[in-house]
């Protein structure tokens, strides 16, 4: 039987998401944001979510809608406040959402550590700052480091350019951003693409996310 990760409906794409799940959402600014998948998650109904995303949503669509519906208990993020992050800003000011602020590279590296099966790593970033408070620090060969733990997802929602039926992905320009690492770091990775291509049409030198990291693909 042929491997076929392409699904026909948003319901199938999102699948079963439990309350309390950790959801990784790709994108930086508007590039690579899987807005339709986030709406699919909204319709699916899971609540009490932890969302990992570089930004905390713009306007009242996508992540903004998920936040507005009170479905997100906690957000892990490097830069929540952007022009248009209206819903998050309101929730934060009202003390109605937990924020774990993480240096951007650390956030990415922690997801990679989860995807790579590591137990954690020592980073020089944030040493001596408020963001390292409560974390173990260690001197290694004369330099100070902070211990950082893996950041895994139950679900990753990723936006990409094109996929084949094995789930191999390519991205478009700077929309690549968090897609590849989130696909590695989640138990289940769901991808929205603009194009489905035949198996073998993607150059093996050019595939950015191999299908091994992808569970379901939906074309929009």
């Amino acid at each position, binding site marked *: 039987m042929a*491997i076929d990760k392409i699904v026909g409906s948003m319901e199938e794409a999102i699948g079963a998401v439990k309350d309390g799940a950790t959801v990784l959402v790709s994108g930086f600014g508007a590039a690579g944001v899987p807005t339709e998948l986030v709406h699919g998650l909204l319709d699916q109904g899971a609540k009490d979510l932890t969302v990992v995303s570089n930004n905390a949503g713009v306007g009242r669509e996508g992540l903004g809608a998920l936040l507005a519906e009170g479905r997100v208990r906690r957000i892990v993020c490097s830069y929540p406040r952007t022009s248009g992050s209206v819903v998050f800003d309101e929730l934060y000011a009202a003390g109605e959402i937990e924020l774990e602020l993480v240096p951007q590279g650390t956030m990415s590296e922690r997801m990679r550590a989860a995807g*790579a*099966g*590591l137990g954690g790593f020592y980073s020089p970033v944030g040493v001596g700052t408020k963001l390292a408070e409560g974390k173990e620090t260690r001197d290694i060969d004369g330099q100070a480091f902070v211990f950082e733990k893996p950041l895994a997802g139950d679900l990753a929602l990723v936006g990409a350019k094109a996929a084949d039926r094995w789930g191999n992905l390519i991205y478009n320009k700077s929309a690549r951003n968090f897609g590849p690492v989130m696909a590695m770091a989640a138990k289940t990775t769901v991808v929205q693409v603009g194009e489905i291509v035949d198996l073998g049409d993607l150059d*093996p030198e050019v595939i950015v996310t191999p299908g091994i990291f992808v569970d379901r693909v939906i074309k929009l």
Partner: protein
Amino acid sequence: MALDQTTDPTPNVAKRSRDEIAKRAAADIPDGAHVNLGIGLPTLCANQMPEGKEIVLQSENGVLGVGPRPAAGEEDPDLINASKDPITLLPGGAFLMHTDAFVMIRGGHIDYALLGAFEVSEVGDLANWTTENPKFPPGVGGAMDLAVGARDIWVLMEHTTKKGQPRIVERCSYPLTAAGVVKRIYTDLAVIDVTPDGLSVREMVPGLTLEALQAITGPKLKVSG
């Protein structure tokens, strides 16, 4: 368990050749699985994949979607597997940097690793990287990474050493690759599951008795079912 065998305890038995061991193991790989084939015997599986299934083979040097060995004259020195043998790439395959190949392995993304072994213990301990011969440098390759990282470990090996000593033992005599990781063993004589209740024989080659198999196996065997 010390055996002093001057005669083959399994004389009338149709032992599996190395290719047949590979084919037998390959037949059990579920459709759609992502699989790494260890160097040596397991590599032969790539030429023996079951019909009607789509299985994605990974090679830790940086290939996902390994196909069968190319025809003579078609080899590409830049397209090889971890055993350094020439391979082909299936449609849908991809090339990876080495580090990413091990993200897949260590990170639990590989469903099955089929590995060779010197010894396997009754609790699934695996010894396949060194015999501690001081004149021969040990080589670990990706064995420890695979043993720890892949979801299920299957071992493919001859049932005994060339001298007729069991390779399936109560306790490994060689240094371990990883403890308690082997789930199933494919040999020239049998297919054996490593279960919480001990070793369970799933299958024997025609003509082989459990008694004869037990005679060349360290720990106590039971039959599945």
